């Protein structure tokens, strides 16, 4: 078993990993940038150390600092979560060189699979079906333009080091290509420190179907079945579910076998996800492998009963996979909805501020993986995911109904969130019918506005606000009124509160 794990991440995934460690009795080390000093992951860990200023390159992407803290605190392992350094093979290599256990794949597997073009080539050689596209990356814009013409529009620009939709752009004509390339490169550079991009054929209205795989150091590999993640905005998943309504047993078996073959070809270890596009004819193409725990891993945990993060910890310490493929039997249906701090009425612009009030849904079959609490600040520095709401029920329709009820019970006041938008997505007749594809959001929700449900609700809200204001007039002067919000807090109320010097006042 691992002795002490440093969690090189923040937000809900850091909380998730720390919880898993606590349950199996492994002490944890949290790291945080100055703006995150009061975050949930810092509260839960056994130890917590500052990484310094908020910009990612200075904090959560700061390899030297993270390695130093791991050694100083006596951690023998590092869990990278997702994002940040999770798929950075330099970081993994550094861990390997420093004698730290990296909870994930080897640096060589991450390097190979992180290079989308090299892994593409490798998979083609192994007979894995891939999307037609560029065979080599070129930095030269003219060459990219030429390749795009060869493949034929529409094409998709993708970051060579990418993942999670960052740096990805769909382009339907040459006229759009240059500007899209510029943005994709800048985003890719900012997110992954590498601005290499490439283009491939854009498949229309595909489903995004991925398989969770687990592999141990003895070459045993199993899959935990599929997740469908077609509901996306800006190429980022917002709703995921398992099982996928488009797979029959035969296709499911075949895709699962291909997923395991992909892992085998890449000498993959630990948990990973093999992503496929499934086109309207039922043909599927290998897309990429996400070499880390996936944001949407909980839905697989709900249906298979296997705790992927705990298994990651066990596999990292050298344990074999404890189950055989035939013993993994999914049960029921699970859906995840990602709650983002975004304004869905305004092109999903990020929203930040203080969470003034928080009420999370509860009840049977409801799981909420969260990184927030009432009173916390949502800052502009990081990915705007706040929480993931996951439901399980006996079948898809019951799960959908449970999700709608849970979203209705989810109240976050003080910032804009995607909660109301997600309700409307999951209530949509085409979603209910299982007719999902990656253009679902632009197709059905292009000009979405939040409905009040009943017109009378606006009056109820207005008169509630009026009474509340009547009872709680805003303070005429003073710091709280001047600087805006401030969660009602006895620490402020005394007027004499100051936090310790040099402790990262933000």
């Amino acid at each position, binding site marked *: 078993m691992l002795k002490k794990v440093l969690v090189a991440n923040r937000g809900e995934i850091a909380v998730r990993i720390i919880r898993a460690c606590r349950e199996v009795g492994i002490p944890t080390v949290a790291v945080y940038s100055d703006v995150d000093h009061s975050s949930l992951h810092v509260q839960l860990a056994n130890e917590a150390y500052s990484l310094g200023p908020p910009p*990612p390159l200075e904090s959560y992407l700061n390899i030297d600092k993270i390695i130093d803290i791991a050694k100083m605190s006596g951690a023998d392992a590092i869990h990278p979560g997702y994002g940040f350094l999770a798929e950075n093979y330099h970081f993994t290599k550094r861990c390997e060189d420093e004698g730290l256990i990296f909870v994930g794949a080897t640096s060589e597997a991450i390097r190979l699979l992180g290079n989308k073009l090299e892994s593409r080539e490798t998979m083609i050689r192994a007979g894995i079906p891939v999307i037609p596209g560029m065979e080599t990356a070129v930095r030269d814009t003219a060459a990219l333009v030429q390749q795009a013409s060869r493949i034929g529009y529409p094409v998709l620009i993708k970051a060579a080091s990418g993942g999670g939709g*960052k740096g990805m752009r769909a382009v339907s004509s040459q006229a759009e290509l240059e*500007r899209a390339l510029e*943005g994709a490169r*800048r*985003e890719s550079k*900012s997110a992954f420190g590498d601005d290499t991009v490439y283009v491939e054929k854009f498949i229309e209205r595909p489903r995004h179907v991925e398989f969770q795989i687990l592999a141990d150091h003895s070459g045993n590999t199993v899959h935990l079945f599929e997740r469908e993640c077609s509901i996306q905005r*800006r190429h980022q998943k917002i709703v995921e579910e398992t099982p996928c309504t488009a797979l029959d047993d035969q296709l499911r078996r075949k895709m699962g076998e291909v997923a395991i073959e992909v892992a085998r070809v890449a000498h993959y270890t630990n948990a990973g996800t093999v992503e496929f596009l499934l086109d309207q004819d039922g043909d599927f193409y290998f897309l990429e492998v996400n070499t880390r725990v996936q944001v949407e891993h909980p839905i697989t945990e709900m249906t298979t009963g296997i705790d992927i993060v705990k298994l990651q910890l066990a596999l990292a310490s050298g344990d074999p996979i404890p189950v055989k493929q035939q013993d993994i039997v999914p049960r029921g249906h699970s859906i995840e909805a990602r709650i983002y701090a975004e*304004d869905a009425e*305004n*092109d999903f*612009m*990020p*929203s*930040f*501020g*203080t969470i*003034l*009030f928080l*009420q999370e849904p509860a009840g049977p079959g409801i799981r909420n993986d969260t990184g927030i609490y009432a009173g916390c600040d949502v800052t*502009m*520095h*990081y*990915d*705007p995911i706040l929480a993931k709401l996951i439901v399980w029920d006996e079948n898809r329709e019951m799960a959908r109904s449970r999700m709608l009820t849970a979203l209705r*019970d*989810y*109240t*976050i*006041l*003080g910032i*804009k969130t995607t*909660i*109301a938008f997600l*309700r409307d997505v999951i209530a949509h007749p085409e979603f209910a019918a299982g007719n999902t594809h990656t253009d679902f959001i632009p197709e059905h929700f292009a000009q979405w506005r*939040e*409905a*009040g*449900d*009943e017109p009378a*609700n*606006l*009056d*109820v*809200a*207005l*008169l*509630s*606000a*009026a*009474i*509340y*204001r*009547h009872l*709680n007039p*805003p303070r005429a002067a003073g710091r709280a009124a001047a600087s*805006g*919000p*401030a969660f*009602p807090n006895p620490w402020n109320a005394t007027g004499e509160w100051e936090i310790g010097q040099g402790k990262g006042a933000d």
Partner: protein
Amino acid sequence: MELNLTFNNEEYRLGVERAEDGYEVTVGDRIYQVSVRPISSNTFSLVIHGANRLIHIASAGRATYVAVDGRQFCFQEATPGGRKHGTRDLPIDRRELTAIAPMPGRVVKLNVTEGDRVERGHTLAVVEAMKMENEVRAPIDGYVDRVLVREDDMVNVGQVMIELKSGED
């Protein structure tokens, strides 16, 4: 008490009076008799025409957030002099001549300087927050009159970043 609340650019006039069994609240020209049953600091039950509605509520500065039936409303209290500096306060024809920040964030790129000729749709600047970039484009063909921000500046949503002159000037 009288107050004006703004929601989706509409202004609502409200009046609150204590009544025998709670409050009499006017919303525009509609009158409601309601009573309030407190549940906790940010939650109460509103009894309106005999029916219960569960309300979650919080305020910060001049903003009041209300959740009714899982839907969230954000109201701004309108007071003279307390207005935010943003396009929402600008007359429509002035908006045409400004480029505003589409979201709060950091100016990561500034493509123009004063006097530059720009075409409608031209990217004037790029704002980034939470790892997402947004382009600020020219709303009209014209010239750059004033640049009010610098690269690396923090901007708020709706803040005027660049003022333009129309081509005829």
